[in-house]
């Protein structure tokens, strides 16, 4: 009898153990981003940051193996984004979607994730309204309201009275213009002129003249990082605006991946943004070291940080809720952690990251240019969500 009992017990334990083993599964995460063409840098930064996170934290959560699957959509292409999401959800059976560099690519999957109840973590796409399209969207990047408002507050506190805004004429530019303008006027400043510049132009001399003539003491600029910013900052220094005492404040123009190409003319530019790769914290140093070890030629930027924290969030959601989409979203709300960019948390209403916004100045650091942080605005939520 005793032997029988022992046998039964052994069988029970074995069954339990086996059952436990069967519970562990491979959880797939589909990453939709741009890996080819002129915007391939987004996908590259995302992928490298995810690999750094996996190298640091392993690929297992609660005994489940996490597998990332990457899909290229070749740029802002909502049709391809939707087809990629369909393929990932149906064929690969992914339980989480992630990535999304461009706003239309994120918006295109909203109906799909609503139906499939699959959380989608946005690593970049920065239009506030995206998160309203589905309760399954969570964002780990930033919005223009989130960085432009602190920029305005800081400028107002530091002596700017009359500001001229100069933005690229497309949705993010208009967002930046409205956010900065309203916040600056609230602080008692005046916006003397609002200049909208064509997205494709690289000749900024006429705009510099308008900025000079406007009588402003500071120019707030928003341009996509890359050639446009290069031409703008070049025009800014060549047309003697700095000498004329017109200060510059921007946001993401001095992105780490393009900053060295800007050269000497960039030195001294002031920006308000949520991440600099020389942020002084042990976590950031560890992140930079690991990135340098795995990808010696790479440099971290805001896209890396969006993906790194996005990967962390996905790990956390899996740890707390497994593959149940609704539970995972609930678990993500209010979650807070220490990121290489500083303390962050997920706002329960907007499902967007709350973070510090740093005021930085471009400096030379050895052979490269860096955004050196010298001031900060603490715990800024997405200020554009309710507009």
């Amino acid at each position, binding site marked *: 009898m005793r032997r029988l009992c022992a046998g039964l017990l052994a069988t029970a334990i074995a069954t339990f153990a086996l059952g436990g083993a069967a519970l562990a599964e491979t959880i797939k995460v589909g990453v939709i981003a741009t*890996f*080819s*063409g002129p915007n*391939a840098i987004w*996908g590259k930064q995302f992928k490298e940051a995810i690999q750094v996170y996996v190298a640091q934290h392993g690929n297992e959560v609660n005994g489940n193996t996490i597998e990332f699957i*990457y*899909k*290229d959509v*070749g*740029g*802002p*292409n*909502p*049709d*391809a984004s*939707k*087809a*990629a*999401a*369909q*393929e990932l959800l*149906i*064929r690969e059976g992914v339980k989480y979607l992630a990535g999304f560099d461009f*706003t*239309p690519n994120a*918006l*295109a999957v*909203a*109906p*799909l994730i609503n*139906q*499939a109840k699959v959380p989608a973590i946005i690593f970049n796409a920065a*239009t506030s*309204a995206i998160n309203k*399209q589905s309760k399954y969207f969570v964002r780990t990047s930033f919005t223009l309201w989130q960085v432009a408002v602190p920029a305005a507050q800081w400028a107002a506190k530091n002596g700017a009275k009359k500001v001229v805004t100069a933005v690229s*004429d*497309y*949705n*993010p530019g*208009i967002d930046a213009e409205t956010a900065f303008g309203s916040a600056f006027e609230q602080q008692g400043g005046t916006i003397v002129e609002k200049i909208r510049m064509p*997205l494709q132009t690289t000749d900024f001399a006429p705009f510099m003249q308008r900025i000079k003539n406007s009588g402003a003491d500071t120019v707030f600029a928003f341009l996509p990082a890359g050639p446009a910013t290069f031409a703008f900052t070049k025009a800014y220094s060549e047309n003697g605006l700095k000498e004329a005492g017109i200060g510059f404040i921007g946001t993401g123009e001095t992105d780490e991946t393009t900053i060295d190409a800007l050269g000497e003319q960039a030195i001294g530019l002031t920006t308000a943004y949520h991440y600099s790769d020389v942020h002084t914290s042990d976590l950031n140093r560890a992140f930079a070291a690991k990135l340098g070890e795995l990808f010696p030629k790479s440099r971290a930027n805001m896209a890396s940080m969006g993906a790194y924290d996005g990967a962390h969030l996905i790990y956390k959601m899996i740890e707390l809720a497994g593959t149940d989409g609704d539970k995972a979203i609930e678990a993500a709300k209010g979650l807070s952690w220490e990121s290489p960019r500083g303390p962050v948390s997920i706002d329960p209403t907007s499902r967007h990251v709350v973070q510090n916004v740093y005021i930085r100045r471009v400096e030379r650091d050895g052979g490269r240019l860096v955004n050196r942080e010298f001031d900060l605005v603490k715990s800024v939520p997405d200020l554009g969500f309710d507009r």
Partner: protein
Amino acid sequence: MIRISTIDIVRTSLGGTGKLLPVAILITCAFAAFWLFPYDLGFLTQMLIMMVFVVSFDLILGYAGVATLGHAAMYGCGAYAAGLFAIHASPDPLLGLAVGAVIGALIAFFSGLLLMRAHGLSLLMLSIAITMVLQEIASKARDVTGGADGLTGISMTPILGVFEFDFIGKTAFWYAFSVLFIILVVLRVLVASPFGLALRGIKDSPSRMRAIGTPVYWRKVTAYVIGGTIAGIAGALSAQITSLVSVEAFNFALSADVMVMLILGGAGRLYGALIGTLVFMTVRHVAASIDPFNWLFVIGFMLLAVVFFLPDGLISLPRRVAGMIGARK
């Protein structure tokens, strides 16, 4: 090189039994694709939409011999028209298609009045310019189009009140295929008609056509409007199936891709347009998933090879091979 006269091609396309074979192949392929790749319906549907678009360009470049680089103008307008119609007027898909077609036709008519007077380089430039103007309008009119964020909020009622758009994309696939099929049938009749023959004549020798009394300009405008109508339908399909329209619908790269697909498959042949689209999109899909950074090389070399060795496109491959075997004997 074997030069097949225009008359021969027309005769074969008018033949009795030969007429049904490609249709049967097409339907078989659609069913085969549906059963073999049940997980790729989203991608296959995109391919079908692109086929509609490329076929519309075939009529203009392949048949009428008018080379433009702004075919995305009609595609984009059709997409925005269908999207806005679905949001503000009626979510019925077929009505939306009709609206896309009408807008595509209107844009093609008004731009065609100007474009068809131009030739060669100036035509290319003008067609690019018109597309860029439209893109600029779409990106500036944020209140209407959503600008760079894209036009959102498009939702569709079931097709004919019966077939609901499903999650896997079955309905979308058959919807796009039916539209492609109907358009192909219409185009086959059209290119074999006297009008189609006139277009071929204009392509070969406009001055001779003028000499025999054909109103060359108006024939070209008509062809452009028909092409524009179909491009508008393609745009409307994409808007309805993706439920989103972005300013990228006017992208120059789209116009260029369409030309590449057509030349790859064989301009001036309806099925050439289908084969070109199939090969281009499959290679891009497969190559991009294997090596996202360098897949453009593959497309580039493929295009070079086709242009050098098969100037009439991939569709001429069987005939070339047959010709080579025949020459050996």
